[in-house]
């Protein structure tokens, strides 16, 4: 598999970060960074990572299916993650989640037909004091109201149209 030079550089750095013979340690970071670049964890990627760190594809599969941020199916260009855990729930996170589902006509871990947005109801993302919180890809948005969410989605949609 070929990756961007930046990603290859990251891989090289990772593989040098752990003690000798412990290259398996790089598995999760490699999967995460590669997923960011290609959008999902494909079987090809599983095999590639396995061979680079010297383990079996099954061992990668075991790990990959354990972690909720690694996914084998593609997500939307903007993956909208809405926290409904306790602090967010108390401050309107559940309603925000329902609002988003209604707005985008999709549900948990679903991708809109145009592929622009996907939704996920997530567990606490560490923004409790700024609840309710939303993460779009890796960007945090704090104290989000349904109106602010609408603006955010509209902004992303128009940014993408340009």
């Amino acid at each position, binding site marked *: 598999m070929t990756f961007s030079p930046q990603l290859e550089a990251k891989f090289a750095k990772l593989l040098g*970060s752990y003690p000798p013979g412990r290259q398996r*340690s790089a598995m*999760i970071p490699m999967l995460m960074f590669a997923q960011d670049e290609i959008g999902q964890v494909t079987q090809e990627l599983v095999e590639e990572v396995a061979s680079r760190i010297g383990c079996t594809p099954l061992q990668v599969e075991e790990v990959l299916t354990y*972690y909720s941020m690694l996914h084998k199916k593609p997500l939307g260009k903007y993956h909208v993650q809405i926290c409904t855990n*306790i602090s967010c729930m108390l401050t309107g996170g559940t309603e925000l989640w329902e609002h988003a589902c209604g707005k985008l006509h999709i549900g948990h871990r679903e991708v809109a037909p145009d592929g622009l947005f996907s939704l996920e109801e997530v567990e606490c993302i*560490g923004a*409790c004091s*700024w609840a309710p919180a939303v993460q779009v890809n890796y960007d*945090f948005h704090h104290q989000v109201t349904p109106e602010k969410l609408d603006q955010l989605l509209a902004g992303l949609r128009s940014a993408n149209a340009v």
Partner: protein
Amino acid sequence: MLYNEPSPHEVKILTRRFGLPDSASIKTYLKTDGYVAFEKALKMKPEEIIAEVKVSNLRGRGGAGFPTGMKWSFVPRTSPKPKYIVVNADESEPGTCKDRVLIENDPHQLIEGMLIAALAVDAHAGYIYIRGEYRYLIDIMDKAIAEAYEHGYLGRNLLGSNFHFDAFTHTGAGAYECGEESALLESLEGKRGVPRIRPPFPAVVGAFQSPTILNNVETFCAAPAILRDGGAAFAALGIPKAGGTKMTCLSGHVNKPGVYELPLGFPVKTMIEEVGGGIRNGRKLKAFVPGGSSCPVLTAAECEGLTMDYDAMARVKSMLGSGGVVVMDEDTCIVKVALRVMRFYAHESCGWCIPCREGTTWLRKLLQRFHDGHGQRSDIVLIGDLAKNMLGRTFCPLGDAAAMPTISFVEKFREEFEAHLDGRPCPFEHAEQLVMQ
């Protein structure tokens, strides 16, 4: 920069640079006593460093509150194996968001804390395990690490000594269980985040089969202050047996949610009313969780005279935990809270042991049915009973973390469970709509 208005009640030790321009840069750090503690520690013997930490009465800030100095002293320094420093920045306990601000605002403080720990046990490499969702913190941390290498605070022969230290960031990928120290080490080694059989503890067999100091971000961040100003000064900030300040994350129904640095032993009522600005919309306090969602809930009545410290919380059968204070007003449906908490633990159970895997799933389903109005009176007993059957019987404390709050919800708010019986709709659904505005 993620930063809230400070409160006059705060004692700013770990947060002293918050709000300074460019607080995350090494320039700012060096201008504000940065790395002086490390310089001091370089001249000390490892035992002296550990002694200083012991004097400070610093207790682990990751949740369990284990005395840090003692933990460091467990590392067999004569072991021929390399030793490692591992920072737990997995911060996933619902209600907790303090490590995030510590890294975002002052990453060098963490690096300096790691260096001090490394000197204490003769470690030469450290890993900062950052939860996957905090990707931007990895960038901040990587930048700080690069700066530290440039300025000779990481790498070889630091400050002309023969001490070497390398630091690396390592990303998680979405798993609460990886906050548990041994599961974190598994994850660091590229495996499923399933805890290890303990003993041996990480201090003896940790990362890569080697002795390892593993602490929470906040714990490491306290180390520079301890070495700089002395353990006694740090101890004096807190109360006997628990020194220093505690990063406290106020969330939920308070007017001024935020992360505040409060001295240990701070009164709960003052914390909610003054630091947090009281309950939103003039409502009354119903309950609060003192240290993340795994701590047993406390009622408004229990707040009277209660202080934020390890022993006081233990006396009311709860825990100081991670400092995630979740405040709930009078219109909060406790059944819904119980359900949401259990949904979290069922989602995050690693699946290794039977009581946790099956118990959390059963309770989630039961509470969902109950909250939906299909509960029976016998279910109320069953909820408590199932939780008790998990308590103390699971492979790791995640099962306890799910059981303890559940038991407290049923015991302390039984009438709210009863109010959901006989097909009645949740009595609080309407109230929540109001909060939304």
